[in-house]
């Protein structure tokens, strides 16, 4: 393969490294050693730097893969929806195990973290195409088609609702919009907001957003107006607007639906943010899992340019702003804004030290505002309808509405646009949940609450959430939920901070010890103490929240843990000497007899 020729069009642009690697992988099926060396040479990087980027992301591979690469999601709702049977069906039909490629080189089976399809699990991504609601029969059919050499696009029999059926999407993904609200799914005429914004000054826009008390919808809840103001005030030869479309928190899929049904509202929000902070370029950082939306989003952008809502001299007001899409490559931690920026620059998505904050030194070390998809869409509506309209909804602290992506044990999983201040109990009734044991608010990094907390409100001052709501009924074993979440954080830790990299593994081991009935009161104390250390000694949100599955279930369901620990024993080892020497005995042909009385 002539790598030089392929690489030419990237003009030695290091920020496009991930894009380059993705192209090479799509051409060769993997990123070969020769490709790595060529890329390193072309971009003036070391081989290790290129390999470091490849090894960081789930969807980049330096080892050959099959013609069809199946990434089966392993989130908890997939497990609840029968993932195990589906996984076994894949292994049976292809004759290979997960982590392997079939002997004929046709199929590779891999696992991946939440792909944003929690309401239609078990789901998988095959060569970039999403397949939802899988069962063993469907798996059999898919593998049959693979043997025939059918293109994955042609394996989609029925497309989903709304724009999922658009000719540029053609995806079986369903929106499942169960409740629309007045903001994101409210009345909206594209183009209105940007025209209105350009009639006033950037300062007025910032004021209006501040007055509306718009808080970041990704979960952290930072005031958007303030962020824009900080960014605007920073000096820099260029400013950037970045839209964070990397919703990776298990159970979150609301940005997927917004981007499918309301992309103009998001892009307009980016243009308004651009006008407010003084940026000419916006970047939509789209998670790899949503690659199937890319062509459609490019098409929407092109249409908006043609309408004069993007591009040079927008609405004849002398404001230039355009948007480009940058793709992720599979990494939960890239939802953290500084990690996202690193990734957008073509590097490993490792969080940066803060300060300096992205508004000071963001993309290419220039002032950047990073906002969530829903936040930007909401800003568009605030500009059209005004701050007072917005504040008339929700609570005094948490104004407006929130998109919740509900999954798990309920009759109507999907998207709900609700006003802040809704109680968990009201939500459970709305979604048709019965016999509920626990509700996971805000995903694994959030809070697991029991019935005692069902009167609590979904809002920033009580139960904040980026949108993820997962419901577990009384037939579920909470320990398997915690186990799934802990595995998730172990997998997704970037590895920079030792307390997060090693601590989460130790936490899981301790948890398993307790779960297996070998724990003591001391173990319970330690698991709590260790959780606090991990939280306080990690530098980004991942490590700072990763012990939450244990800590919040301990708070809400302490009796569950206490029923498993031995209250009398001071110490119970998991260690079994006879078991531990068995392997060595087998290798050396020796017999082992434990000495009963030493010396």
């Amino acid at each position: 393969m002539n790598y030089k020729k392929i690489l030419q069009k990237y003009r030695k642009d290091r920020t496009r490294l991930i894009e380059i690697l993705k192209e090479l992988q799509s051409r060769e099926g993997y990123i070969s050693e020769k490709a790595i060396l060529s890329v390193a040479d072309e971009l003036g990087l070391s081989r290790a730097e290129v390999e470091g980027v490849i090894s960081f992301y789930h969807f980049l591979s330096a080892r050959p893969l099959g013609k069809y690469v199946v990434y089966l999601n392993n989130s908890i709702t997939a497990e609840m929806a029968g993932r195990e049977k589906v996984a076994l069906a894949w292994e049976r039909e292809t004759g290979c195990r997960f982590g392997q490629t079939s002997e004929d080189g046709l199929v590779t089976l891999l696992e991946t973290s939440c792909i944003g399809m929690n309401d239609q699990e078990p789901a998988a991504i095959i060569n970039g195409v999403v397949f939802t609601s899988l069962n063993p029969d469907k798996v059999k059919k898919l593998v049959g088609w693979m043997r025939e050499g059918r293109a994955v696009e042609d394996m989609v029999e029925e497309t989903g609702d709304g724009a999922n059926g658009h000719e540029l999407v053609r995806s079986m993904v369903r929106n499942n919009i169960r409740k629309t609200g007045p903001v994101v799914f409210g009345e909206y005429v594209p183009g209105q907001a940007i025209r209105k914004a350009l009639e006033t000054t950037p300062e007025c826009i910032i004021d209006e957003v501040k007055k509306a008390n718009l808080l970041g919808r990704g979960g952290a809840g930072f005031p958007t107006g303030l962020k824009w103001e900080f960014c605007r005030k920073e000096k820099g030869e260029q400013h950037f607007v970045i839209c964070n479309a990397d919703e990776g928190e298990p159970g979150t899929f609301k940005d997927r639906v917004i981007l499918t049904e309301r992309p103009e509202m998001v892009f307009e929000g980016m243009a308004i943010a651009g006008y407010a902070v003084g940026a000419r370029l916006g970047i939509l950082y789209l998670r790899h899992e949503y690659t199937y939306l890319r062509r459609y989003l490019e098409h929407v952008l092109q249409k908006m340019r043609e309408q004069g809502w993007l591009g040079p001299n927008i609405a004849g007001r002398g404001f230039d702003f355009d948007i480009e899409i940058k793709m992720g490559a599979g990494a939960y931690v890239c939802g953290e804004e500084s990690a996202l920026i690193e990734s957008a620059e073509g590097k490993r998505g490792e969080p940066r030290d803060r300060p300096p904050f992205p508004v000071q030194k963001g993309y290419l070390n220039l002032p950047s505002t990073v906002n969530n998809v829903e936040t930007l869409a909401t800003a568009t509506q605030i500009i059209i309808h005004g701050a007072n309209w917005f504040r008339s909804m929700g609570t005094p602290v948490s104004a407006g509405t929130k998109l919740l992506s509900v999954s798990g044990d309920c009759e109507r999983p999907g998207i709900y646009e609700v006003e802040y201040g809704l109680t968990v109990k009201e939500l459970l009734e709305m979604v048709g949940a019965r016999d509920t044991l626990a509700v996971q608010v805000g995903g694994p990094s959030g809070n697991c609450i029991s019935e005692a907390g069902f009167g609590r409100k979904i809002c920033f001052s009580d139960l904040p959430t980026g949108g993820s709501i997962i419901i577990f009924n009384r037939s579920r074993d909470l320990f398997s939920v915690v186990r799934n979440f802990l595995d998730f954080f172990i997998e997704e830790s970037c590895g920079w901070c030792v307390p997060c990299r090693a601590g989460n593994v130790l936490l899981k081991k301790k948890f398993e010890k307790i779960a297996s009935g070998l724990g003591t009161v001391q173990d319970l104390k330690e698991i709590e103490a260790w959780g606090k250390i991990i939280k306080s000694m990690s530098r980004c949100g991942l490590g700072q929240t990763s012990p939450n599955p244990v800590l919040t279930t301990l708070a809400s369901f302490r009796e569950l843990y206490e029923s498993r620990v031995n209250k009398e024993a001071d110490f119970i080892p998991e260690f079994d000497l006879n078991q531990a020497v068995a392997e060595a005995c087998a290798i050396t042909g020796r017999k082992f007899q434990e000495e009963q009385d030493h010396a």
Partner: protein
Amino acid sequence: MSKPVIATASLAGCFGCHMSFLDIDERILDLIELVEFDKSPIDDIKKFSRPVDIGLIEGGCCNAENVEVLRYFRKNCKILVSVGECAVMGGLPAMRNTIPLKECLEEAYLNSPTVAPEDRLIPADEDIPVLLDRVYPCHEIVKIDYFLPGCPPSADLIWEALTALVQGRPLRLEYELVKYD
């Protein structure tokens, strides 16, 4: 009143923690005023001769003998302390934990370029302790009361911890004692 009694052992370690212990230099004169030693490589006493107050364990457990010694210490010591990274976490020896035992042995005794063809044999003599499937930190095998991190923990840290235990006072953990960069 008799002096507190101390015992030490080096399991799967490098004796570095014991060397670090000896780095207390002239304080060793204070030490013998303060405590008595029982089973320890320092005085070469092989068996416990009386109940021991404080046992210091260097190294994790890589073979059955380590486990037996550790259990023997637990039985005979009121307080047991994991001293150093290997005892606390398995340390350097635990690097083998990611490689199957069979591969480790084959690499060391069969495939290594420094093994002469006629010597290619995985040792199986009955006198050699049987290896464990992986290297374990001490607290996974017996209850450990205190942990002194470091590779090795500095002489000052060992001294401070030991004297605090003996005198029954809280540990004064100066930053300098527990920083490693």
